[in-house]
């Protein structure tokens, strides 16, 4: 598998499993617990035989003892399709945000692919949205990495319309500086439809702690926004930015969306391990360096 510069990262996350946050719809056999029951060797429960059931699944010993026909059921496991929607707007090109986004997507895709989950990619850029449908075949990770490497961050684009075509597990990697509210509603709708929604909020360290030098801060996606970031306004900026991030995190979590704030100077492998933690464990995990405390 030609994964270029991601080799070390993939080695670091080898063995990591990314289980679904709940039962997944039935499908091809996989690593995630499915909502359906199957015929696996391990016992789960009995169900009275109904016409149409496979007679081979009748527990004959129980029939002999109770003179009643029961079907022996076992828990079923299925795969979970995962679609990564990556924000490639101009703001993602700031500092190391895009680099971190690429590494997280490749690493998480490799983790999911290791569980035989199909992984797909949607790169949202102003020129065109490049789509890779979810596939489980070998080489999909390399293809995904190549697609990301060929992408240049530019312009501004809405991510919300892209969520509808996502697989069951939708992972959005963005800095939320575009259509944040519409995206939250789209992910909430996806969650309500039984899907699993993750949002990786990419933040640059220089956005959290801007330099002391007085500058005229300019929004790369909107030239009309140009404001002096000087000593008098720096503290107010930090406070407003932190308040906004806390508000966004609270709303997303309230909608059942797995929210993770990732800072561009944090090691990607550590972030991957934190992201794939089960929900209960993840809430107790330490926050990444540089992140504001949750309210």
């Amino acid at each position, binding site marked *: 598998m030609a994964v270029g510069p991601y080799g070390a990262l993939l080695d670091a996350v080898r063995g990591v499993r990314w289980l679904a946050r709940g039962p997944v719809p039935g499908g091809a056999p996989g690593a995630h617990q499915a909502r359906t029951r199957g015929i696996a060797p391990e016992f789960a429960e009995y169900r009275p035989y109904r016409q149409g059931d496979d007679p081979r699944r009748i527990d004959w010993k129980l029939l002999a003892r109770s003179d009643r026909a029961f079907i022996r059921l076992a828990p079923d496991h299925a795969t979970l399709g995962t679609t990564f929607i990556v924000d490639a707007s101009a703001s993602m090109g700031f500092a190391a945000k895009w680099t971190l986004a690429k590494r997280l997507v490749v690493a998480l895709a490799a983790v999911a692919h290791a569980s035989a989950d199909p992984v797909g990619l949607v790169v949202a850029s102003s020129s065109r949205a490049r789509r890779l449908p979810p596939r489980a075949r070998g080489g999909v990770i390399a293809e995904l990495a190549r697609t990301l490497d060929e992408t240049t961050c530019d312009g501004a684009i809405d991510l919300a319309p892209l969520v509808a075509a996502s697989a069951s597990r939708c992972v959005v990697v963005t*800095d939320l500086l575009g259509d944040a509210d519409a995206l939250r509603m789209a992910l909430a709708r996806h969650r309500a439809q039984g899907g699993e929604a993750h949002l990786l909020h990419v933040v640059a360290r220089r*956005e959290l702690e801007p330099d002391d030098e007085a*500058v*005229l*801060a*300019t929004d790369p996606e909107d030239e009309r926004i140009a404001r*002096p*970031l000087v000593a008098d306004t720096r503290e107010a900026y930090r406070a407003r930015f932190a308040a906004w991030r806390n508000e966004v995190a609270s709303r997303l979590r309230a909608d059942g969306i797995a929210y993770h704030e990732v800072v561009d100077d944090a090691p990607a492998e550590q972030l991957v391990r934190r992201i794939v933690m089960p929900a209960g464990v993840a809430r107790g995990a330490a926050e990444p360096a540089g992140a504001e405390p949750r309210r």
Partner: protein
Amino acid sequence: MSFLAPWAFAVGVFAALGVVVLHLLSTRRPPRAVLPTARFVPESEARAVSRSSRPTDLLLLAARMLAALLIGAAFARPVLDAPGPSVRTVVLLDASSSVQDRTAAAREATERLGEGGAIVAFDTVVRALGTTEVASLRELAGAREAATGVVDASGAYRAGPPRAADGILSAALVAGVREARAIARGADSVRMVLVSPLAEELFDAATAGARAEWPGGITLVRPTGVADTLRGPTPRFDTPLADDPIAPALAGLRAARGAHDVRLVRRALVAADSAWVREPGRVLVHWPLVGGDASGSNAGVNTTTARADGVTAFGLRPATLVAPLVRLPLADSAARIIARWRDGAAAATERRIGAGCVREVGVGIPLAGDLTLRPAFAAFLQAMVEPCGGARGIAVSDSAARAFARDESAVPARLLTAAVAADATLAAWLLGGALLALAAEWMLRRRRDG
């Protein structure tokens, strides 16, 4: 280049320093920088105070400083300094009749002139000598014998005896100050030299004020040989009367001031008197006796008519006599009045006859009394026997001359150049340079702000 208004250039220098300070601590638009989260920066004025210990935009700073300095220099009334000696000299050359040896005076003047200096010749007229006239003066100075030529106010060298012209020192001082200001450009200092015997007639009421116009000292050069008009043959008294009350005063006058060719007539004038007085330098004083003899013109005037009165003579030194006097009638009231009674009436007159003059004195001296022994009468008598046209050539004392000259210090050129017209062309060039610097500053600022 120097400035006539250096304070304006100082203002420009301070403005340039202010530009540097404002450059380091300025309210300007900070440089643009991409920040995706710029929307969270509070909205405020896009220009913010920016402090920098290391100056940036050095070209911009240089253009602004240059503009400030050039504007300050343009308004400081600049003048270009011509190369020349550091000390220049203005020579005031006395060309009046009080100077006897003009060759010596011309030599003194030309020796002290120096490079870039100026000569102001004066008698009753004042004029700065030009190049040709100075050359004429050098020619006169090179003469072996004492020259009889005159370098008068017109600067010409003309033969003949010195003309009887008074000098006006006050006008010469004013002209000298004006010439000093003219030659002060390019020099460190200017000194003034006065070549004159410094006779008393040079001084008038305006001399002190004109002297105050020159802030420095004056180097006084007094050529030898003053033409003393009082010097002459022994006076003769036509009617030496043993009991003449004027006789004692005349004796004292001779002892004090030397002799003069004066004929004092106490009787009526005759034709011989008129013939005598026509010779040059002779003075005939007709001063009749009160009560007179049988042949006197004042026969019949009673001495009892004397009464307290006052008379003032306008000689070299005005003299006022207050005593019992007799007013004698004057024959020629149209002549020049040289003494007046206290009510303004003519008391003595002077009339030219040939090369001499006749004075009619209408002040009757009573025969009795000690009036003629008083100093006031001696002064009055001195005025009456002065040469025709008044006494000349009496040099002031050395102490008075030192008081007039003060010292020999030169005057700094900067104190004189304030009255010199600034170089308007140079100021225009400086302003043009300032405009160019401002244009460059505008272009640099536009390029910087993108």
